């Protein structure tokens, strides 16, 4: 169902000889990955490298009375055991890179626990040895005396004044509060014919990329420069943080991104290890390598999504949505990490969704507890918000005896109201929906799904103990935060085009998409374009890959640089060919005279003519390279619909997806096949969050889902096929490509629709994710009892 742009469409854009934007060209990234020639960080070896293993707290809440590593240090092959006392004093905390709230600076994590452990899995010591095996061998020889105290796990209880404080110096377990209110909420509720009030919650789960994190750090002895391989996502930002924490000038620190095995919001943030491993390399003057194992990964990488909402809707009896009032807690775990208040901020800002409310009020409480710290995970804050809002609308529809799709249609923001100011803000920045035809997408989405057909399917008898349900969920996503990106495009003397860009790859195919933008804008073949990123030595600046920004902002910066380069190439060729630049174009690897392809000059020759010697002798600036920044002060908002038809077994709790469809307007799809891949893969993660995945804890604060036997991710056995329709009805006016980010829409509403369909099937409202077999059976049993 992926639309590929027709030739007629493509040719109408004109101006260049290569039209590849909108085509599903094959990926540039694939060949090394398919043949084992890829290089993930653990694949990299340096001579004489030491290996690090990180000893983590087995306790969720304890004072460290003493640490004695002498027995471990006496073992063969063990080089060093580093604890907090070995770090530069006072121990620096890992800073926030986004959305800080006042007071959060008191809740930041030190790289190693300094006297107190606040979650199970917190790094306490680093063992450096000649091999990873030798390093782990001595864990048991490090004598640590913990004085445990009561763990605070529930955010509601954590705010009780009688609860112990995780960070006494902060004076409270409340990490931050966000309040958003506009319109007359009280009046709307007073005027309402129907109010619906529920407590709904979403469980702790997270990114869990398949490649564990790893780092390799090496100090170059002659220059004293430090290189760190294994960076990801926000390479330049992390260089800045690392340089500051190590007390080195930024120029002395080089971060390099290798192949990256999935990010999804979790990987690439600055974690304790991102300081510890380089610190050890500097301390010992030898390369130090570290790769986490899966158990570490599940306890150490940011968790996400744990929110509980008390939410109320006010409606008229004719179905008009009047107001929403919400008060929620987000469990941020033991420390505030790099994301600051991004997650609850996104929830509060985008909870209103695609509907035209009269009034809205939200109070968000971000709370510290003795669990792994939390951060972003694909569609952060919005997966939760969509679950809350779309669940509530279904509950209201049932009370009003209305078709849920129809009730949504009645309340959508009309296209005539675009751009639409939602009245909310993220990090102080107003949320303004840039473009969209929400009713049109609803119609397209229901048609793609076959809504009427599925409603008929739902009424068929599925047999004893089986129940069928249908659910829809509408969502507005956001894309392209942190506004700007850097790109440089140049032509080499072999005629090839090289792009350097500040975007990053987390495995999503960014090289391919950005090469398409460059090829089309510059007018050269896709195959002639090479995209480079992720090395702070060759790319001076960059913001990276998060929040569905790489194509949108990286692409726009590349388009701008490529346009300038094209003009320069035509100018240079015009002199050579004694023609006007307006009469020239680029075809293949040459600049030619339009209509006379035999008359032309190879790009490589133009590049050679700009080498310093030649260019300077003509009194010109050398080089054939153009640099550009793209700055977009506002986010773009893609939007879409998820629909699902499913069947539940009331005795076993098994849920079988009959049909799943996603319709998503991304403004413009640079590579439809890759967008489709993002959506389907995103659905798989949302599906896992809806039915399977949970970072469950016991009452002492131990993570009981610390392996893949317990943390269940979808396999090919459970995952349904997904119908995908990509629409391009509302290109954003905010960038020259019209592109909105596409990375998160597949995940965004999956929890919402699966819960809606299961509620429909069971005749009982699901209020908590994940809908495990036990919960499904329980919902069915409650219904029977009622």
């Amino acid at each position, binding site marked *: *169902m992926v639309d590929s742009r027709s030739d007629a469409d493509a040719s109408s854009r004109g101006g260049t000889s290569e039209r590849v934007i909108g085509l*599903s060209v*094959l*990926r540039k*990234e*694939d*060949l090394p*990955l*398919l*043949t*084992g*020639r*890829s*290089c*993930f960080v*653990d*694949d990299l*070896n340096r001579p004489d490298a030491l290996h690090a293993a990180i000893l983590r707290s087995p306790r969720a809440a304890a004072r460290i009375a003493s640490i004695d590593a002498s027995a471990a240090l006496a073992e063969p092959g063990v080089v060093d055991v580093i604890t907090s006392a070995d770090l530069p004093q006072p121990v620096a905390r890992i800073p926030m890179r986004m959305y800080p709230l006042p007071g959060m600076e008191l809740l930041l994590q030190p790289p190693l626990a300094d006297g107190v452990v606040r979650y199970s899995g917190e790094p306490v010591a680093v063992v450096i040895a000649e091999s990873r*095996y030798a390093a782990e061998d001595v864990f048991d020889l490090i004598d640590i005396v913990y004085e445990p105290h009561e763990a605070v796990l529930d955010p509601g209880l954590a705010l009780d004044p009688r609860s112990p404080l995780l960070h006494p110096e902060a004076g409270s377990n409340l990490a931050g509060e966000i309040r958003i209110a506009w319109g007359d909420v009280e009046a709307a509720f007073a005027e309402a014919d129907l109010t619906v009030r529920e407590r709904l919650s979403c469980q702790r789960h997270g990114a*869990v*990329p*398949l*490649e*564990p994190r790893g780092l390799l750090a090496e100090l170059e002895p002659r220059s004293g420069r430090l290189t760190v391989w294994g960076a990801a996502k926000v390479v330049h930002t992390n260089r800045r943080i690392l340089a500051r924490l190590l007390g080195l000038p930024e120029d002395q620190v080089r971060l390099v991104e290798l*192949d*990256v*095995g*999935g990010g*999804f919001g979790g990987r690439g943030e600055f974690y304790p290890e991102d300081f510890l491993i380089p610190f050890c390399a500097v301390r010992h003057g030898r390369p130090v390598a570290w790769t986490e*194992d*899966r158990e570490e990964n599940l306890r150490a990488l940011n968790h996400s999504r744990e929110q509980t909402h008390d939410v109320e809707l006010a409606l008229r009896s004719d179905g008009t949505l009047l107001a929403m009032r919400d008060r929620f807690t987000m469990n941020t775990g033991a420390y505030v990490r790099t994301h600051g208040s991004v997650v609850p901020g996104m929830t509060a800002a985008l909870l209103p969704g695609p509907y035209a409310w009269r009034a809205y009020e939200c109070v968000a409480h971000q709370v510290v507890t003795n669990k792994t710290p939390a951060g972003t995970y694909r569609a952060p804050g919005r997966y939760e918000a969509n679950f809350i809002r779309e669940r509530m609308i279904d509950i209201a529809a049932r009370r009003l005896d209305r078709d849920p799709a129809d009730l949504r249609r009645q309340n959508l923001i009309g296209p005539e109201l675009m751009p639409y100011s939602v009245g909310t803000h993220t990090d102080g920045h107003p949320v303004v929906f840039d473009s969209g035809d929400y009713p049109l997408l609803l119609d397209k989405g229901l048609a793609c799904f076959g809504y009427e057909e599925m409603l008929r399917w739902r009424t068929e008898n599925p047999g004893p103990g089986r129940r069928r349900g249908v659910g829809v969920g509408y969502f507005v996503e956001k894309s392209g935060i942190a506004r700007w990106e850097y790109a440089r495009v140049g032509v080499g003397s072999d005629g090839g085009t090289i792009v350097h860009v500040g975007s990053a790859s*987390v*495995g*999503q*195919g960014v090289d391919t998409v950005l090469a398409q933008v460059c090829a089309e804008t510059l007018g050269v073949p896709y195959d002639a374009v090479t995209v480079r990123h992720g090395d702070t030595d060759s790319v001076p600046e960059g913001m990276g890959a998060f929040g569905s920004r790489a194509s949108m902002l990286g692409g726009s910066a590349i388009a701008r640089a490529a346009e300038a380069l094209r003009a320069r190439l035509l100018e240079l060729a015009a002199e050579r060919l004694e023609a006007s630049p307006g009469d020239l174009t680029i075809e293949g690897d040459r600049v030619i005279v339009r209509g006379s392809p035999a008359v032309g000059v190879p790009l490589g020759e133009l590049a050679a003519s700009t080498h310093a010697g030649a260019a300077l002798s003509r009194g010109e600036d050398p080089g054939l390279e153009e640099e550009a920044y793209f700055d977009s002060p506002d986010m773009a908002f893609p939007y879409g619909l998820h629909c699902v038809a499913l069947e539940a077994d009331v005795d076993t709790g098994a849920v079988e997806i009959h049909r799943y469809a996603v319709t998503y307007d991304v403004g413009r799809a640079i590579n439809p*096949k*890759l967008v*489709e*891949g993002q959506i*389907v*893969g*995103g*659905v*798989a*993660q949302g599906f896992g969050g809806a039915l399977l995945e949970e970072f469950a804890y016991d009452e002492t604060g131990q993570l009981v889902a610390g*392996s*893949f*036997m317990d943390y269940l*991710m*979808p*396999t*090919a*056995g459970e*995952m349904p*096929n*997904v*119908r995908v329709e990509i629409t391009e009805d509302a290109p954003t006016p905010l960038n020259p490509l019209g592109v909105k980010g596409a990375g998160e829409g*597949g995940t965004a509403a999956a929890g919402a629709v699966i819960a809606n369909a299961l509620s429909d099937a069971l005749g009982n409202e699901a209020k908590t994710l994940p809908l495990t077999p036990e919960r499904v059976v329980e919902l069915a049993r409650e219904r029977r009892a009622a």
Partner: protein
Amino acid sequence: MNNRKVSIEINGRTYDREIEPRLLLSDFIRHEAGLTGTHVGCEHGVCGACTVQLDGEPVRSCLTLAVQAEGHSLRTVEDLAQEDGTLHPLQQAFHECHGLQCGFCTPGFLMSLEPLLAEARDFDEREIREALAGNLCRCTGYQNIVASVRLAAARMAGSGADETEPKEPE
């Protein structure tokens, strides 16, 4: 710990090494033989990223000790393509069907599936999904992996096949 001498054949080449008996086969392949195309995703036998073939059968190299492979013949992802670089039909199909994103799990999928495809017949979706169910992929949602297997199977079965277009899901 007394080291043991082992002689293990990987991709037609014999590696003679003296190793600790506890060394995982995955670590032997990656660190002793330097074949880093085999990836380690969980080290407890669930994710399947480390799958290699031991005497032609897929095994989890993270659940196997290197000493257990003594005298056996191993095959890893590096051996799938031909020497001239021509991709195995399964690799080619993954490329054409967008069957991989980050690619970390991909070698495990390829090594798990390749013996199945050697049966040179068509497979229905249920059979393919069953064959895939021992490997985790966090990126693709499996849909395009299923399509890749279908395309490769059709081509290898020679059922008119080279022209087979990647199928849209039903």
